[in-house]
């Protein structure tokens, strides 16, 4: 086979693998960003964090009803604790994502990508 073609195919292979891995990391990150509380499912987003912080700043800290991802009302007993837990989880998920992503960026071969 023409060497140029061979290299192109090799690169294509690498790109497919790289994209698959990126997708897998993203899926994991999204899964890690879901926080479960009192029967409710909350995806930790900037919006959620900001909203919780605003509620707390306004003096609402106990027995607050928050609407979850499935539009179900969930009573949160301690909103500060909820926010702290959500932020903790956010940091764990995003740090892990970051670290794994950095490793991915460094690798230049299919084998290295999946080590």
């Amino acid at each position, binding site marked *: 086979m023409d060497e140029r073609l061979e290299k192109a195919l090799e690169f294509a*292979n690498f790109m*497919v*693998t790289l*994209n*698959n*891995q990126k*997708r*897998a990391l993203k*899926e*994991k990150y*999204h*899964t890690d960003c*879901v926080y*479960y509380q*009192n*029967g409710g*499912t909350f995806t930790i987003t900037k919006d959620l964090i900001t909203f919780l912080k605003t509620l707390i700043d306004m003096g609402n800290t106990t027995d607050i009803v928050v609407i979850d991802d*499935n539009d179900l009302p969930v009573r949160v007993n301690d909103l500060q604790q909820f926010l702290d837990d959500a932020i903790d989880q956010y940091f764990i998920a995003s740090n892990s994502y970051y670290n*794994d992503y950095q490793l991915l960026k460094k690798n230049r071969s*299919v084998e290295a*990508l*999946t*080590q």
Partner: protein
Amino acid sequence: MSKGVLIYALNNEQIDYAKLALNAARRVKKYLGVPVALVTDSADWLYKQYPNYKDDVDMVIKVVHQAEVSPWTSTWQYPVGSLAFYNGTVWRKVNEGPEIVDVVDVVDVVEKAEIEVVKETTYSFNQEDFDAVYEGIDVDKWYPNLPYLVGQHVWYENTLYRCAIQYTEGETFSKDKYISLIDKVQDGDIIEKIFKGNIVLFNRSLWMSKFDIKTEIITYKIEDFEPVYEGIDIDKWYPNLPYLVGQHVWYENTLYRCHTEYEEKEEFSIGQYDIILENVQDGDIIEEISKGDIILFNRTLWMSDIAGKRKKETVTNIQKTYKIEDNFTRVYEGIDIDKWYPKLPYLVGQHVWYENTLYRCHTEYEEQEEFSSDQYDIVLENVNELTQLTKFTKGDILFHERVLWMSLINYDIAQSSKDKIRYDLWEDTKERFLVYDSAPQYRQYFDGAMTHKKLRFKNDIRVKSFELSPFDETLVIDCDYLINNDILKYCWQQPHDFLIHKQAVDLSGYRYDPRLVTLSDKSIDFYWATVFFFRKNKNTEIFFNYLGHIQENWNYYRYIYQIEQGLYRNDFAFSIAIHVMNGYQNGTWAHDLPGKLYYTIDKDILLEHFDTEMKFLVEKEKYRGEYTIMKTKGINVHVMNKFSISRILNEELNV
């Protein structure tokens, strides 16, 4: 509420599901930390191949073709080592001993507390309940020794015949001379139960029932009867007893009143009595009651206003039986003890038992109404009457049949009931079994894109999860669902009763199958039965019962929901059942499981699985037989290629 995981492992010819299930169980223990119950039809294989299975599995539920172990019964004598089925699990006998603490000599049967009469209403043919059918023909009931003509219609043993040859009948029905026309024709003169559409012969014509008709059974208790001659207490006559003036006595279906005080001998002294009433039935033994009968029951007279039969199963209390010789020893031998009664003479030295105390009389006297304790010396206290006890311990002194006994055993009626197994003799193996035969189904199992085998596909038993699960809150997983995190722990912390995945993520990223979104183009949403959680309650019980109905009537449901495949699949059945539970619309009866359902299909290959990391060869898009490599970490994955899981496990075990 008990919680745990249920894993199914039903083997086929080539895949060792037991091995896969043990691996899945191990991961459950590691990440979720809850008990695991395994449902398998290859328990013997499991025990033999994996003798350390108890490290990973807390209970094995066997699926068998027929019952291998009989239910436990107290009437059977089991040797040590026997197996019996009791209270949902299999028990093994580990110690010698009788099933109940058994006494032959004394049987204390508590008298029946009530009398019940059962009346069966009879149905009389009512033309309004029927439509005439086959009009124009007259039907004769068959009788022996009569002539029959050609063309004559005859009814015999619920079948309508037409006579083909003229003849004179003998003793038995000459079936060969008839053409059978209609079967299941009931005799309208003695209708007990008829369903709508049944045909009945009445008055030489045929009729079709418009409704379901059945005779009723009505139960009457003695309290439903009218008491008569109120205010008098009646004693049954017995020989060798004193009788007093004015005492009412029942003897041989006659009520008498004693007019002279006397001591009875062996025979009834009719001269001492006036007849009050004749034809008074004994309520304890009467079998059939007619309207207007007067019955003696519980020392009172009752008049029946219905006719009926005595109900066979009347309430009896538990029989308490004791084996005197084996379990007791005589104490204080040489003394005979009488129970105390009022208005009797007592002699010096006489031993009397009264209110759990043994006394010896020291002064001869005539007793009055009350116990004259000053006439006695206390001999022994805490002497209970044996037949009144439900519980006693070894060493207790008991009064029975005029003598004292010391118990050699601990006895508790709760333990010794004919309905309860003796826990001191039997050990629970924690094994359950279910008699079940999977429907014969086969499907293709791929091992990568280029190899496949057609193997037995047994998945229909999953509809029995409610019945099988020993837990109140159960997470059910496939044995090829590999757990790599603890996200499913949340199932037991949340309030919803049924959780399942509706959406799933194919790790290939490019494959799309619309039949994993809806069951068919026009049909309902698809739910994944790979992993689901349920809490046992009425709602989920209804759901699983309905699932069973779907499975049993799969062909019907398949067409109703336009499912092209003939193969029964749990995913389809669950989807249908959830749709119905939602009221035939999209709804929230089933909630989402935490996390997402990731999967690879059996054309992908699992290469490695170490700790929470998995490496796959994922089928390449548009390049059959070529793969792209992919790694995942910390996510649970449904790995459909069971051959590849098996290979990895073999490598781990160096097989």
